[in-house]
């Protein structure tokens, strides 16, 4: 045992020997380098803290001011006939849910189908596929107001300039969400091992069946988290909604007809068009902001947890 220890210790001793006999200037240079290293590390840490400050401050402000109106009335009544205190955001919450749901209905099937085309059907290096990929990239950069204007002009061409509806808002938001869904789905589909497709084909399955029953289930957790990330991206959009769904004080359950409130627009109008009791409007705006942030936080968390939860189940 001791013999072994000696044997093991020898190389270490040899390594240490030159350092002991190092002259002073080298030692100083080493300690200077050490200090420099620590300073730079501290600068990076500072940057990390710097980005956390605004976030924490924002969360603190929204929570502390928003709690004032987190009450039963806020979640059960609209702003119909309310001019001062009281009232709620139920109509805006319902509006946001309906518009987001419709957006999902449009962008999830089309987005996944497009991603399946790009990864499963397009020949590698196909011109058409790279053209589609380029367009998807361009779509990612469309300013949301432009998406709103597009939806607005499309619907006013057909139904007249005064037409406002939740479905038009869903169309505008779908333009923003589609590239997110396509890109994230494409990425997770590429991660599905090619072996699995071949295993499916070798069992005598048609290509579309293999995609439907093997590839997509294997990619499902990733697809879901991509979709949830997309929802988190569009649920706070305000500009296109101002254009195409407008603002409303009363409940409108019908997304096909009429102005429809939504949380971001609700926040904007409460703050922008205050009545005599300004405090009541401010409180409602902050509470709606808190609700919106909570929804986004839950979605972001769900997007993180979806892969793990789905895998754990199986």
């Amino acid at each position, binding site marked *: 045992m001791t013999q072994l220890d000696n044997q093991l210790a020898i190389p270490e001793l040899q390594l240490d020997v030159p350092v002991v006999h190092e002259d002073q200037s080298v030692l100083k240079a080493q300690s200077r380098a050490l200090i420099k290293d620590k300073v730079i590390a501290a600068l990076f840490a500072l940057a990390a803290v710097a980005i956390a400050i605004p976030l924490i401050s924002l969360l603190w402000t929204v929570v502390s001011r928003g709690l004032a109106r987190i009450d039963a009335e806020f979640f059960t009544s609209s702003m119909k006939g309310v001019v001062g205190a009281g009232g709620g955001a139920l109509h805006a919450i319902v509006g946001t849910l309906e518009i987001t749901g419709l957006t999902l209905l449009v962008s999830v099937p089309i987005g996944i189908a497009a991603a399946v085309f790009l990864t499963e059907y397009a020949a*590698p290096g196909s011109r058409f596929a790279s053209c589609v990929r380029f367009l998807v990239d361009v779509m990612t950069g469309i300013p949301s107001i432009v998406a709103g204007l597009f939806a607005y002009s499309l619907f006013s061409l057909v139904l007249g300039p005064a037409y406002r509806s939740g479905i038009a808002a869903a169309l505008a938001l779908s333009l923003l969400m589609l590239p997110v869904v396509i890109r994230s789905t494409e990425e997770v589909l590429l991660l599905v091992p090619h072996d699995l497709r071949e295993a*499916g084909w*070798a069992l*005598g399955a048609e290509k579309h069946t293999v995609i439907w029953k*093997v590839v997509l289930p294997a990619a499902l957790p990733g697809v879901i988290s991509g979709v949830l990330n997309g929802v988190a991206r569009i649920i706070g959009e305000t500009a296109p909604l101002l254009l195409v769904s407008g603002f409303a004080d009363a409940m409108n359950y019908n997304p096909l007809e009429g102005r429809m409130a939504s949380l971001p627009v609700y926040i904007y109008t409460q703050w922008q068009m205050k009545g005599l009791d300004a405090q009541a409007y401010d409180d409602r705006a902050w509470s709606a902001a808190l609700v919106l942030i909570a929804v986004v936080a839950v979605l972001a968390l769900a997007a993180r947890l979806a892969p793990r939860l789905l895998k754990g189940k199986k």
Partner: protein
Amino acid sequence: MNELEIKDLNAYYGDFLAVSQVNMDIPDKSITAFIGPSGCGKSTLLRTLNRMHEAVPGGRITGEVALEGQDLYGSGVDPVGVRRKVGMVFQKANPFPSMSIYENVIAGVRLRNKRISRKDADELVERSLRQANLWDEVHDRLQTPGGALSGGQQQRLCIARAVAVEPKVILLDEPCSALDPVSTLAIEQLLLELKERYTVVIVTHNMQQAARVSDQTAFFHADAEAWAELTRLEATLGDKSLPQGTRPPGRLVEYAPTDELFNNPRNKATADYLSGRFG
């Protein structure tokens, strides 16, 4: 009787000729081993036998492969139908990760959108797992994911999945190359049982494995000198149609009953390969 008859088969990746002029007959209810150094085209040839070669971009063949006298590449033959008769097991065990052991075994049925009663499915799963010598190890946890099994068990699960669709032929592409010796032995014993019911073709890097399990062995080699000689010969004969590749294509050098090929190889390249002089 010959189960598979390969005639004048050339296999290409795009313009590249990977396998050239293979002629061989594979008898039924036996094990045929394909051996040879890397890049000799043995896996490519295997994949032409169930038209999986076409799944690779640019993959195409000329020539003929007949199963029970019927050309698999004839016009109007659906590659999907061919794969139902000629099953395949891959180098890396690839059970479907989103499915349980049970679902993996009946995946072939489900993926064909065929309806199967619960009772029939239960029977099929038990029969297939028994054929793959896996039933005793997994019968009490059929609903757990297939990916949770050991490597050797996963590979036997893949074999169960392949036999569950009741093919005539089972192709195995280096099925033991990622397995430990004990799991390898289990698969080899399984192959000897499978040949009672199926025609088995196995690609292997392991010459001892070929010697242990196979009835006949085919040695493939992509020999540059021989290829140059051959193309010169064709040119003098006036046939310019023989395609040129950047690398020499793999060719069937020798095909004989396993004992004969190992103990008394007729070709020098075969003898050199078997004695470990190259490859």
